[in-house]
């Protein structure tokens, strides 16, 4: 009897927890994630080192958080990542929807790539944007590959062309 009520409690707690990570919205980033890795990036402990990557030890604080993935999606546009990588399919830069990563596809590797930049065009964002935003972008990039829970990942963007005249096969949109 005791064990049954305990398992009921356990199930109840699990049910309550299912929503938590996905729905968490820390709009205010924790102060420890405000660091801007400038030149310090080279001495950063977050250096998994080179193309061949041993066990990544750094986990993304925003893993599985719907809000942060969506923030990452916004920043991906804001910081013009789509300028080279398009919507993950790649253009000037390599595609991001893929299995094989040149510099490693673990969260820490992607973080590292964004912070330090890579040869042949990937700029170093270290010294520019705060750490928490990099992690949000990492979360979004990983979601492109289905590396985030589907329940936390948007199915499609609401990509909206601002100017109705530019819309493909659309009427002008003038209503008055």
């Amino acid at each position, binding site marked *: 009897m005791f064990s049954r009520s305990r398992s009921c409690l356990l199930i109840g707690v699990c049910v309550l927890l299912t929503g938590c990570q996905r729905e968490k*919205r820390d*709009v*205010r*980033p924790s102060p420890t994630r*405000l*660091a*801007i890795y400038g030149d310090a990036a080279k001495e950063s402990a977050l250096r998994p080192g080179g193309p061949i990557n041993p066990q990544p030890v750094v986990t993304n604080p925003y893993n599985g958080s719907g809000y942060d993935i969506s923030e990452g999606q*916004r920043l991906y546009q*804001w*910081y013009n990542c789509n300028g080279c990588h398009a919507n993950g399919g790649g253009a000037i830069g390599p595609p991001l929807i893929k299995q094989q990563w040149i510099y490693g596809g673990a969260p820490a590797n992607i973080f590292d790539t964004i912070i330090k930049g890579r040869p042949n065009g990937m700029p170093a964002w270290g010294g*520019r*944007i*705060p750490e*928490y*935003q990099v992690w949000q972008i990492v979360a979004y990039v990983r979601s492109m590959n289905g590396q985030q829970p589907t329940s936390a990942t948007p199915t499609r963007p*609401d990509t*909206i*062309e*601002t*100017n*109705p005249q530019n*819309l493909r096969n*659309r009427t*002008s*949109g*003038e*209503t*008055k």
Partner: protein
Amino acid sequence: MSWYGGAAKLVCFAAFTDALAFCATDVQSVVNPAGPQSGKIAGLWWFFFWLLGAIFLIVMLAALRTLTRPNRGFAQEPLEGTHQVSQETENRTTRVVTGATVATVVILFVLIVASVSTGKALSELPYKKNTLTIQVMGVQWWWNITYQNSDSSLVVKTANEIHIPIGRPVQIRGLSNDVIHSFWVPNLHGKADFIPSRVNTEWIQADKPGVYRGQCAEFCGLQHAHMIIYVVAETPENFRKWYDRQLQPAVQPSDPVTQRGQQVFMNYACVYCHQIRGTDAAGQNGPDLTHFGSRLGIAANTVPNTPGNLGGWIADPQSTKPGNHMATVAVNSADMQPLINYLESLK
């Protein structure tokens, strides 16, 4: 004297101070029109108010009159006779109810005519000449403003603050590229929803100088409450001056502190989102800051534009406006004062 005496005093005091506030703070009020559009609507409002108020009183008096009918009380009387009303009474009541219904129809007809003719009058403003076109784009959670002109050198970009000359019809072309917003400056006109993939226009005109407060009126997410726009109505001369000032690129910093501030701005993430014309900063994601120092408010007018507020806003945007999209950038304490000085110098 007891506790409720004190409470009564308190309420009276609060009522008094608020009555003062009521008179003083009509910067965002439907019944304090500052232009022809809102004036017509306010006129229509008072017409509706008095007419419908009178009808309400009549209906309520009729309803209360029924209370004076002989009351049967709780005791059970014999059933016979109580449920039947004489035919004569029924006929008279029928006449009264029919009359009331006919009166309702007539009054509603009057109201429809008044409403539709006011609507027509509102749409006549665009036919005036000498108009000004301002493109306003609602963005989560601020207003991106462009004064349109066929001559591209006369286009002005700013944010969260519209200056208009008095007596001149202004066309607001409303856009949105994220969610639906609604532009509403009640002292000038009603709402216009800004809907992605559509352009909605609204014509406003102010007849007396002043600062009119407006606010997004369609729920648009976390900071819907802090998406405020000021419309500053000025004399044509003042407007001209303001406009010419806005056409200029940003002032170059003259003293070492502001020069340092400019460097700070360029070195941090600020440049990815903000534009300061005349410098390398060309970000388009956030408000244009070219003439930031001349504006009334910060963070879509969430707080007044003071150096203190600005410092607080940059250091921790999420405390002023939780959930907004400005990056929290850890600016060194040594860099903060020059940065504030620089931004405030952008008159």
